[in-house]
């Protein structure tokens, strides 16, 4: 670490550096076509109407635990860990916009505002509002504390004054649906999107649509073998899902538990690596599903 440049400002500089390259549309199209072909072959044995959804956690699981799940998944029930990211992102946003000085200060008010708004309008911005509102104080504290820990790690990872424009924090997942007989949907979730500027003024409004962006992904634990493909997966899905926008220029991964920050600049080979990983994961997934369905 160089003196005078803090770890947070180094991360911000690394994230916002001018793009190293730009993936042209021909390349994007070629990678898309090859992926469609590979996936169509892989899922040929599945019954018509079957759906496959690939996410980053599933992509990771396909390598770490390729065996089929031992038991049926439990029905969904809210837990603090499911609130951590969305409330954490709201806290980071509240700090980035100057509403609070730190996630710890903002946790109570931001959660209370969400519940108040839900009660007033019936609209669930985060979905967890009714569950959170019904929790006793002790359980609420766990939810808030988890979110504060998550948000503090993200908040302290960057020098927020170093961003030319406020990054988009959270937002909708990127999605791409493969045009095949059986539905394959790729979903990717980034924690931040940062517009990149080569020179000139910061982008505003629709200009963002034509500027390249950098994505930030936050994960628990430690990075596993193949982390570059996993980060590039986020750019692949964003690039395929929004063909009118440039492919993201880079993806930065944060592993706060391990204190690691790793970055992938997105070029043709990065996207190809991610696409190959998707093909492998779908093969694994289909194999696991067929083995579960097979008669004993």
């Amino acid at each position, binding site marked *: *670490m160089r*003196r005078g440049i*803090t*770890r*947070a400002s180094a991360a911000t500089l690394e994230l916002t550096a001018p793009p190293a390259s730009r993936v042209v549309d021909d390349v994007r199209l070629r990678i898309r076509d090859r992926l469609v072909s590979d996936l169509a072959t892989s899922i040929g044995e599945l019954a018509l109407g079957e759906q496959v959804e690939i996410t980053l956690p599933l992509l990771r699981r396909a390598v770490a635990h390729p065996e089929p799940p031992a038991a049926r998944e439990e029905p969904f029930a809210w*837990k*603090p860990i499911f609130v951590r990211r969305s409330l954490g992102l709201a806290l980071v946003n509240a700090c980035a916009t100057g509403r*609070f*000085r*730190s*996630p*710890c*200060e903002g*946790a*109570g008010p931001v959660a209370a505002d969400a519940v108040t708004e839900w009660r007033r309008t019936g609209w669930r911005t985060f979905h967890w509002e009714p569950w959170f509102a019904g*929790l*006793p*104080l*002790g*359980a*609420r*504290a*766990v*939810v*808030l*504390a*988890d979110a*504060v*820990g998550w948000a*503090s*790690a993200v*908040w*302290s990872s960057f020098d927020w004054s170093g961003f030319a424009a406020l990054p988009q924090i959270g937002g909708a997942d990127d999605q791409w649906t493969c045009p095949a007989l059986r539905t394959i949907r790729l979903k990717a979730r980034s924690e931040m999107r940062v517009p990149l500027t080569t020179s000139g003024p910061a982008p505003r409004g629709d200009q963002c649509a034509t500027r390249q962006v950098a994505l930030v992904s936050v994960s*628990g*634990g*430690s*990075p*596993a*073998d193949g*982390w*570059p493909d996993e980060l590039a997966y986020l750019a692949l899905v964003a690039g395929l899902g929004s063909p009118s926008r440039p492919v993201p220029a880079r993806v930065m991964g944060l592993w706060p*538990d*391990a*204190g*690691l*920050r*790793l*970055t992938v600049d997105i070029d043709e080979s990065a996207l190809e690596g991610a696409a190959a990983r998707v093909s492998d994961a779908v093969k694994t997934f289909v194999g696991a599903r067929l083995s579960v369905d097979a008669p004993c």
Partner: protein
Amino acid sequence: MAALGEAWSDPWRPLAGPALLERLRVTGRPRPKADPEFVHRIRHHLDEELSTDLAGDSSGRHHIPSETDEGSAGAEERGQAISRLPPLVVTKGRLNRVLACDAHHPDAGFGERAPTTAMACGAIVDVLFRQLVCVGAIGDPMVDGLAALAVDDRQTGLASWIERLPASDREELRAEVERQAEGLRHRWPALEGSWLPRTQESMRVQLAAGSIELSARVDLVIGRPAEDEASVAIVEVKSGARRAEHRADLHFYALVEALRSCAPPFVVATYYTRTGELDVDPVTEELLVGAASRTLIGARVLRDLADGADPRRVPDGLCGLCAVMPERGPGRAHVEGSGGQDVTR
């Protein structure tokens, strides 16, 4: 003599509020500089020693990527060099158990301890402490504590055990929890939000090409990540009595934090909620080197045991299981060594 008499008549009182905070903040030693080169040397030593062990392993269980033996690897190279096999996880508890008596280590694996009232009290006080730091208030301690345990997947077994306690045991637990919660309310200082207080922070460091993972979860971390000077304080909360291994736990935390952040915490401390005592350890290079040596020894023993080696059958005064399981060989020797006295009391 009068002064001495006054000193005796003025009993010790636990620190509270700003004084407690000051004791944490001002350790009497200069804060260590953030020295990535020093931390890198410790990591390199651990990597090299543990990788050398693996290279000599003929079981085929371990996989070492060849590109990782440089030691000068930066974060990216470290990230690339992760073994495909699940790592051997080294925690403070596993280190303590295996270094105290590796014969009893297999009896005390992850999450296999039978619940006790003391364990229940500790879990509840932990969540109440977390609540106090994050929300700034505790309502009915037992109600809040049980509500918190109920939403934690790792604690549902303990929560249900508490619910099934006989009324008298439950009342005893409630009394102790309320007593400790009262102490927390009165003594624990409010923390500025700008210090980024975070609770139950998970810390992981992979070594030897990802074959070993040091893992810790600390009760409280205060301070922004270090830049030029160590700026983070780590506090562990204990609801029980002071034990010899608590200092070693703190040193392990200091090591893991130093390795993951390239800067050590400036202080590690244990706060005893039962008495209000605060044990403070300023972090020094010597402390980190000592923690690294201890961790290296423990990690080797853990790995040998995982590979099927016979445990040392040596009784140890620090092993609680030797003391309470005298029917077992090491335990019998332990009791005989203490003249047949019950050393657990």
